[in-house]
């Protein structure tokens, strides 16, 4: 399954509802984008177009805001989101290894890729979830898994997949030729 099929079908009524609730002035740009993202998991182009059409927020401002803040993403997400914390404490306790191990487990290869080929899980790096004493840690959707390591993170994802009927892709070893 390619990323293409993860594109959301945007419901115009939903967007109008957000605008009615949060307002259409410039200061509503961040809350509007947050509302869209919490519904679709990312910011679909169509949703942003609708906001521009129906509010006084200009295209350049909305896109400018959407690309400025770390929280917003313009690419679709898989069915589940895994955040990998990269705060200082997580960094010094081996957060990079969590990326390596989960990318391997979920068969995510290449610099730009962040979603498993079957659309099951998306990996994102976050600056800090403020839970530094349990470093390093990951957050699968809402659930935090702390004091973990590469193998522990794989196990947590395996358990999550089993519990939620997700199929994990077959991990393929990369062939390295230095």
């Amino acid at each position, binding site marked *: 399954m390619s990323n293409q099929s993860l594109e959301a079908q945007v419901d115009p009524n939903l967007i109008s509802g957000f605008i009615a609730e949060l307002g259409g*002035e*410039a*200061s*509503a*740009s*961040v*809350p509007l*984008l*947050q509302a869209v993202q919490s519904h679709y998991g990312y910011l679909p182009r169509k949703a942003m177009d609708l906001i521009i059409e129906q509010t006084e*927020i200009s295209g350049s*401002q909305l896109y*400018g*805001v959407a690309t*400025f*803040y*770390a*929280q*917003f993403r313009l690419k679709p997400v898989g069915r589940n989101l895994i955040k990998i914390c*990269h*705060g*200082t*404490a997580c*960094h*010094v*306790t*081996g957060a*990079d*290894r969590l990326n*390596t*191990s989960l*990318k*391997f487990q979920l068969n995510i290869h290449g610099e730009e890729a962040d979603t498993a080929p079957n659309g099951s899980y998306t990996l994102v790096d*976050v*600056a*800090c*979830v*403020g*839970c*530094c*004493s*349990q*470093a390093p*840690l990951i957050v699968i959707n*809402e659930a*935090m*898994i*702390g*004091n973990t*390591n*590469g*193998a522990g993170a794989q196990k947590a994802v395996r358990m999550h997949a089993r519990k939620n009927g997700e199929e994990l892709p077959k*991990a393929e*070893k*990369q*062939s*390295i*030729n*230095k």
Partner: protein
Amino acid sequence: MNAQSLQIIVGEGTCGIAAGSKEVMELFSEQAPAAQVRSVSCAGMCHMEVIAEVIDKDGKSFMYGKVDKKGVSKILDYHLQDGEFPTDLLISSPEEPEHENKQYLNRQTRIALRNVGQLDPTSIDEYQARDGYKAIEKILKGMSQDQVIAEVKTSGIRGRGGAGFPAAIKWGFAKAQDSETKYMICNGDEGDPGAFMDRSLLEGDPHNVIEGMLIAAYSFGANKGYAYIRAEYPLAVKNFGLAIEAAKAKGLLGEKILGTDFSFELKIKEGAGAFVCGEETALLASVEGDRGMPKLRPPFPAVKGLFGKPTIINNVETLSNLAWIINNGGAAYAAHGTDDSKGTKVFALAGTIKRGGLVEVPMGTTIRQVLDDIGGGSSTGRPIKAVQLGGPSGGVIPAELFDTPIEYAAINATGAIMGSGGMIVMDSKTCMVDLAKFFMNFNHMESCGKCTFCRIGTLRIREMLDKISEGKASMEDLDVLENLSRQVMSSSLCALGGTAPNPVLTTLRYFRSEYEAHITDKRCPAAVCKSLITHRVIQADCTGCTLCEKACPTDAITGEPKVAHSYEIHMDKCINCSMCVEVCKPDCILVE
């Protein structure tokens, strides 16, 4: 003993939940259905999570830590069935109030943190039972704006967000402005990746923050306010939202508070993730719906801030001290601390430390006291090499300077900054070049792009650090690095660029030999920098268990399954990710 008389209180902050407090709550409820099981906010004793307090029928309190499934059975066994006493889980009991595990809390002086872990943050009644909203009541019943400002001035409290500007003086500027609308903003955009005191305060004692906002708002006449809270802190947003509703329902927020002419309307703004929004003018731009880019000051926000109106921005921790100061007097607060820095400061202690979590100590306490007396020393058995203070804007302080007292001037003299209070402890396995690279990467990514030196300079610095960590740099590069760092600091508008090279300058100052090892010996002494290390199987110890081969994300490891001494790592295919080291049971993979 019957279960009805038992009270079980489980800590349920974000750390507690990460450690499994939800399951522990459920297990207690299942196995002791008659007991009263309830949750409180996180006490900041993160190394002992999950924490549960049991109050027996005689009102005696027992505190247990590291409670898991087995722990629940053990605890209930003791309290309900006269089973064995769960010594291994004990933090404190009526017989042992000074138990070693309790020293972590006993050795602190908690003012800002006085309520966290003591109450249910979603209950306004519990906050009021602990003198909550007494300070604002006292003010509204008979303190003038000037009296409030004077009291807080006496306390000597300086802004706890990092800059350390005296809070009361800032309020004075805003009070002097004549404007119908003034804004009071709580800065809860805790951006330092390694600090979590604001999270704990917002989710663990939200009413205290609201009361602090009311006190500040009253002092300069603000009638509208926002709490700017990071979106990465969902529990803080939730608990703070509930607290606003509860306070409104009791007439403590909104129109005509407690029947007086003072009105204050408060809303939450969720931050969308930008470190630069810790800078006041950038935060304001963000609330106004723009990219969070700082503006030139003056005009200062106290004069011309949000939507052009006078605006005060105070940090969560600053606000959390205010109710206590009004209730107990500014002099009582100033009695803690030193001449330079009054009161207490909260630190988020994490990294390779035995007892990590939230620590509140009087200013003037030395770093060593925090690390040894409260933190219990290194968690790895390897000596502590340095602490990092002040996050990406701060610096490292090496072990030989651990007797430095924690106060603004003394910390600044080391090249680090007090910052918001992140204190990350590092042992010999942390590479200082890698750490500098980590922070420069962070600062580069978080630079808003307005000033050239910050936008491009931070990237150039990171590239030079890359070069050093790959063993491709020369000694001359160190001079260029230092020079460029100083230029970035002097040519940036805001504090992000103005402090961004601090991690580089302090690591260079105290750990220059590590930089030199990378450059001249092409060696990473901490065995961290991937280009300079190798992984090798000590075949004599290999059991042939196949775990390393399974964990390896490449085809670098080969061997005969179940045949001892047979596995080897092919360096031409190894990406030095260390996944094999994690899983190797006989610990026979050598990284050097």
